[in-house]
């Protein structure tokens, strides 16, 4: 789960990590209050920061929500010093509008929260990140003197400027490792000492929060030699939510596709894509493989959908509903490798679901595994717009055909049942038993 900057900072602060403070607002009505709160805490200059789940905010462009071609204001993050009036004017132009950065894609993201933060004077920007190194299954801390730029760029252009420390899972982050990082960053005096505290707290936070990534970019050295997180990106491990029930409220559904949110209510693992062939598959790997197959068959996948191990009538029906609410879908491919699940049961589920929903696109169903032959009979005799397929190759071919049919029939009434039952002699036409 991704967090907003203000949420991340709030969590980090609980672990004693020094952060640039601020007040999140969701409405301009609260702007003045936010400023007053900051002033009361001795803040005399401010920064306005858009809160979206994407980077590159500072260099982004804000467009009007109702007229996407019109620029509301340049930049999603701005420093205003003590000019609070100007800050308010800017905030009014950003909140509720669409911020486009190099990470959001052209559609951008609506700015629904602004973080009114304290403006800080600092002398240096550094980089600090903690994440899992998948090559050795240990957490790695990466630090660099190149702060404020994307670490991927640094890694590519000047990899020697990245220091890496791997943390032993048994003993945790050691003091000497913190010192290695500090010296590597060229820190000295008060900043050196402050950093040791900072990194220890940050690593404790990483472990305590069950984070899968923490990135502090930039981490700054203030004019009075304090180390502080000017920005903070935290991603939490979705598998660990059972330990952190309170994190559920941090999930920002506005940042997610509405269809994906809907699907997650039914425990369906759905990701919306922009193609024309919807697919419903059991298992994540096969689901990805099926998407690839659709592409090779001349279509383009409209989604990723893993219905899990047991494709029962309810999940299939919900899957249909989700897929069909995407208007781009011209055909559907259901690919279930039955395995231990019996295919005839899945077939019955598909037929039942198809009867309950008005499906106006051709549906290719490929069921493989136990009782696959019976399953095909059920599908073919259903009188519904279901095309049974045998092997993966066969399924690909039929998806292609279905697409052509959809094109021919576009605008017409629901297509008649299609009879394509001959089992082509592809490799696994041979009965598996």
């Amino acid at each position: 789960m991704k967090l907003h900057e203000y949420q991340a900072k709030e969590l980090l602060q609980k672990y004693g990590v020094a952060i640039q403070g601020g007040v999140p607002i969701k409405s301009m009505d609260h702007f003045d209050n936010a400023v007053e709160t900051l002033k009361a805490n001795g803040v005399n200059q401010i920064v306005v920061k858009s809160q979206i789940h994407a980077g590159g905010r500072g260099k982004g462009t804000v467009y009007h929500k109702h007229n996407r071609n019109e620029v509301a204001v340049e930049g999603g993050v701005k420093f205003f010093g003590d000019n609070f009036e100007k800050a308010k004017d800017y905030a009014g132009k950003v909140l509720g509008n669409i911020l486009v950065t190099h990470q959001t894609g052209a559609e951008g993201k609506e700015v629904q929260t602004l973080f009114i933060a304290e403006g800080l004077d600092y002398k240096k920007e550094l980089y600090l990140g903690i994440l899992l190194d998948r090559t050795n299954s240990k957490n790695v801390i990466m630090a660099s003197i190149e702060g404020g730029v994307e670490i991927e760029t640094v890694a590519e252009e000047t990899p020697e400027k990245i220091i890496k420390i791997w943390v032993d899972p048994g003993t945790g982050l050691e003091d000497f490792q913190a010192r290695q990082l500090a010296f590597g960053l060229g820190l000295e005096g008060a900043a050196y000492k402050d950093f040791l505290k900072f990194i220890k707290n940050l690593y404790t936070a990483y472990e305590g929060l069950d984070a899968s990534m923490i990135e502090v970019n930039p981490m700054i050295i203030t004019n009075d030699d304090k180390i502080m997180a000017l920005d903070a990106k935290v991603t939490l491990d979705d598998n660990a939510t059972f330990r952190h029930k309170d994190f559920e409220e941090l999930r920002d559904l506005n940042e997610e596709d509405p269809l994906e949110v809907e699907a997650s209510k039914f425990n369906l693992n759905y990701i919306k894509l922009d193609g024309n062939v919807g697919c419903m598959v059991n298992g994540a790997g096969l689901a990805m493989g099926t998407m690839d197959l659709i592409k090779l068959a001349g279509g383009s996948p409209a989604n990723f959908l893993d219905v899990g191990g047991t494709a029962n009538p309810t999940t299939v029906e919900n899957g249909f509903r989700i897929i069909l609410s995407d208007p781009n879908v011209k055909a559907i491919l259901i690919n279930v490798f039955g395995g231990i699940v019996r295919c005839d049961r899945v077939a019955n589920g598909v037929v039942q679901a198809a009867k309950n929903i008005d499906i106006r696109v051709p549906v290719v169903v490929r069921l493989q595994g136990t009782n696959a032959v019976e399953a095909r009979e059920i599908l073919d005799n259903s009188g519904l717009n279901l095309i049974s397929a045998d092997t993966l190759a066969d399924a690909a071919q039929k998806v292609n055909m279905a697409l052509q049919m959809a094109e021919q029939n576009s605008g017409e009434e629901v297509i008649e049942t299609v009879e394509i039952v001959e089992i082509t002699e592809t490799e696994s036409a041979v009965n598996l038993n």
Partner: protein
Amino acid sequence: MSVLVNKKTKVVVQGITGGEGTFHCSQMLQYGTNVVAGVTPGKGGTEYSGKGEDMFTRPVPVFNTVKDAVDATGADASVIFVPAPFAADAIIEAADAGIHVIVCITEGIPTKDMIRAYDFVQKKNSQGGNVRFIGPNCPGIITPDECKIGIMPGFIHKKGRVGVISRSGTLTYEAVAQTTALGLGQSTCIGIGGDPVIGTRFIDAMKLFNEDPNTDAILMIGEIGGSAEEEAAYYVKKNVKKPVIGFIAGRTAPPGRRMGHAGAIIAGGKGTAEEKLAVMRSCGIITVESPADLGITVKNALDKKAKKTAPKKTVKKSAKPAPKKAEAKKPVKKAAVKKSVKKAPAKKKTTAKK
């Protein structure tokens, strides 16, 4: 011969009385797996025969701890069906009890827990232990007709000479079914799991199959995310003489999104299918474009190898016993297959055509 597990493997099922544990234990027993014990804390000293529709072919003794089970039965492999919050502990318990092959099926284990479990196994091995940990979030391992440890449907497998390594579950079944349908069969299939932290990586499994005299070809099924496939590819280039066939799922996956498996995410432009396939190709791995062609590509590779090694055999004196076997039977099939790559209703009848 096979990799890691065979007829003699004695299996203990951790979490045997739970829903998943019960169902899959009944399936494993039915397949003929030598399940010698189950573990459920608090139910030690009893015997368990399944429940409801999932009755066992014979009762299995239940123990409180893995150690008790090992002491009493000599179990050397374990399969874990323990819920995610407790699964890492179960892995560590198995390693501590002296189990040699630990297979963790459980999905959704926090990464922090897995780092700890992985580290424990590593340290145990560095102290002279002999632990092979597979998973988590995987279908398990199977040596056809001998030993099934996991949740894969047994009937799609067939004894043979293709080694299968895969990060995915159902996609593995797909690959297995394709090779079976072509009459090839599998030596052993290892589902290594789709998580970011896993006990056995592609390279580890690759080494095992490379050293197995009864594996003639290796099929690796990867997916987007991480760089484990590349790591294995470089090993193949250096060490593997057997044909290696590779597929990467997720060419059409968008960057930055987690595609079902926790490990399947293209991060910072790294871990794309194209990138992996390019490295694999450069290392001499035969890559497959379509998941529909997994089986046939393996078959073609084996046929080509048989053809290549056949004339060489007379020139080179160093022909090993394993390739010899392949030479003996493969060229016969070749002609028939070439003619009918597309339709080939394989089985053994293909040879008859000739």
